[in-house]
């Protein structure tokens, strides 16, 4: 279970592959891998967004994400999970978050991956501030699950 915060742009595919090849180390055991990639869109609540700053609470972020991972591990039969999250200034089309889960069978991986991203969005202390054409605004709440 690994949580990484990235201050510069990251490539979700590269993170996924590198982790699977170098860290997972259980080759032949995982039958399923699910990954979620959240990408910055250039439009939100009716306005064109030019950039975004992701603030977080160093220390609490890692602690909360670690707890979320541990809960997923207790609840589902998964082999490993990786969370990578951007902080700092993000531009449209750049990835914000990767959540990847490996398991022997697919149901556990799907369920755990979905749990992880929903829990991250409600519990991990990140905040988005959007840069619009001439002004900035804090994003007030996340998009609901449905």
């Amino acid at each position, binding site marked *: 279970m690994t949580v990484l915060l990235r201050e510069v742009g990251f490539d979700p595919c590269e993170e996924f592959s590198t982790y699977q090849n170098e860290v997972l180390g259980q080759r032949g055991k995982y039958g399923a891998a699910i990954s979620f990639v*959240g990408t910055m869109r250039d439009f939100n609540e009716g306005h064109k967004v030019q950039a975004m700053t*992701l*603030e*977080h*609470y160093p*220390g*609490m972020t890692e*602690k*909360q994400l670690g707890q979320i991972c541990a809960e997923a591990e207790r609840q589902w039969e998964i082999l490993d999970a990786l969370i990578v*999250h951007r902080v700092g200034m993000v531009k449209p089309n750049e990835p*914000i*978050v990767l959540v990847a889960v490996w398991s022997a069978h697919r149901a556990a991986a799907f369920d755990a991956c979905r749990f992880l*991203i929903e829990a*991250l*969005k*409600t*519990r*991990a*202390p*990140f*905040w*988005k*501030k959007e840069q619009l054409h001439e002004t900035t605004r*804090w*994003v*007030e*709440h*996340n998009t609901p699950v449905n």
Partner: protein
Amino acid sequence: MIKVLFFASFRERVGRAQGMIETSENLTVAEVWARAAAGTPLPQNTLVAVNLEYASLDQVVRNGDEVAFFPPVTGG
């Protein structure tokens, strides 16, 4: 000493990122806000963390604790 942190829009609203409270008594989280927020009323939907864990406004805070106030989180 109690360390107080404000994040995101709360930081801007209160006008500071952090402060210290010297106190010999135990305070609730709500009382910590009242002392540290320089007159800013406590916003609705305030989230609180004490020592990096979510807490309620009536939780009692002790010397050496770190108390953080912030709006709903919007990561992911």
